[in-house]
């Protein structure tokens, strides 16, 4: 279970998070929605322990993440999977070696076992034929799928998806969200997904939280959010230009 309580964060005097609180139950995926540049990715990086908050608490299965140090923190992170917006593949490694990286570094599996696991993961994302290619030689969609395979290869208990479909064509975007749904069905990980692909994402998540002006405006099931009468939520969902959300 992930609990976020009263999270505050400023960058160079600009207050991005002004008291963010929400929780994600075990085995549940929460969609974090809100305007671009409002701090959704910043929240994800806080939860993953990459950024320290100015104030507030984050607990994962009861452990306060910013109180953990050294091996304990590494162990907790070993349970994470993180799909970065850019993919964050290692440019000096092939697709195969990228996916094999967490297995080689964090498990004692033999090279044969690693090979089997990596090829299965690549098969799941439809990239078995691209194993020898480098990130510079593959398309944006393939980079995202490789990154997805890498983040899932160790069967993580907690997954973070930072805009997994941004910049992809609708077919590949749909395929990636289908993959996330099917893998969640298999692994039952706890997850947070940041995405603007609302219609499809709402079908695969159990809960939605909307971030607006540094705070969580509302949390509810996808149905509750879709039927919300809050003018901010309505404007965001319909994508209307008219309404309380100001264009920056």
């Amino acid at each position, binding site marked *: 279970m992930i609990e976020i309580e009263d999270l505050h964060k400023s960058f160079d005097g600009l207050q991005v998070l002004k008291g963010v609180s929400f929780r994600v139950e075990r085995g549940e995926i929460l969609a974090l929605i809100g305007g671009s540049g409002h701090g959704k990715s910043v929240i994800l*990086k806080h939860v*993953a322990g*990459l950024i320290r908050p100015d104030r507030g608490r984050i607990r994962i299965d009861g452990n306060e993440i910013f109180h953990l140090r050294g091996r304990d923190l*590494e*162990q*907790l*992170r*070993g349970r*994470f999977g*993180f799909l*970065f*917006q*850019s993919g*964050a*593949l*290692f*440019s000096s490694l092939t697709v195969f070696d990228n996916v094999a*990286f*967490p297995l080689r*570094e*964090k498990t004692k599996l033999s090279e044969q076992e690693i090979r089997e696991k990596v090829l299965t993961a690549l098969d799941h994302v439809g990239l078995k034929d691209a194993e020898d290619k480098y990130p510079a030689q593959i398309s944006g969609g393939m980079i995202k799928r490789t990154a997805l395979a890498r983040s899932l290869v160790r069967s993580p208990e907690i997954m973070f998806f930072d805009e997994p479909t941004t910049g992809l064509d609708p077919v590949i975007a749909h395929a990636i969200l289908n993959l996330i749904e099917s893998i969640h069905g298999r692994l039952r990980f706890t997850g947070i997904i940041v995405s603007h692909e609302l219609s499809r994402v709402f079908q695969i998540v159990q809960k939605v939280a909307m971030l607006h002006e540094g705070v969580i405006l509302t949390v509810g099931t996808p149905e509750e959010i879709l039927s919300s009468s809050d003018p901010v939520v309505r404007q965001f969902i319909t994508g209307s230009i008219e309404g309380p959300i100001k264009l920056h």
Partner: protein
Amino acid sequence: MLVRKLGATTLFALQRTGRMGVFLVKALIYAITPPLKIRQVLKEIRFVGFQSMLVIFLTGAFTGMVLGLQGYYTLNRFGSVALLGPMVALSLIRELGPVLSALMVTGRAGSAMTAEIGIMRITEQIDAVVLMGVNPYRYLIVPKLLAALIALPLLTSIFDVVGIFGGFLIGGKLLGVSQGTYFGEMANYVDTQDILAGIYKSLSFGVLIAWICSYKGYNAGFGAEGVSKATTQAVVLSSVLILFWDYILTSALF
């Protein structure tokens, strides 16, 4: 106002120096505690050491040749051309070998270290390493530190040997100092202490290059501009510190 500005600048400089110090201490602690990424270390030795050999060979040869030429004409005025061998050897072993090798490695491998780590930083590859539960110091910094520590003394030795033969090529083959005089006098004047001092210098330069260049890359700013700025700062700071540290060591060792 001026006092406040001065205070802020001093505090900023102190903070930065402190952070750099903590970075080095962490890297050194991880370097001496297992597990060690042997494959990464070997890969870095190949990059820092083996792939720098050509530039070290050329720099060493030309430095030795210039020393042979200048040394011959200077010593000839005093009728002491017999001391050309010791002059070339001592200049190379005590000063020019360690310093020029370190400067060449900074330009060739140090800048690449900063750029590589900097690009990994701005493309979130370091964050990815961290989130896989892998210690980025062990995976990225320690192999570079150990590689520089191992490669620098070896490259410096190659520089010295090539330089000494470069000096002989000019002083001996071209200007007529005999082989026996050139190398025989060298054995009389160069002692183990000189060689050891050169090795100590190159070891410390290896740590310095890996430390500064890795730190600058690890803390690179945003985008391509951030990486290019970090690379420039790494090369300039490493070069200045090499010369500064060389002076300190020369004062202490000789």
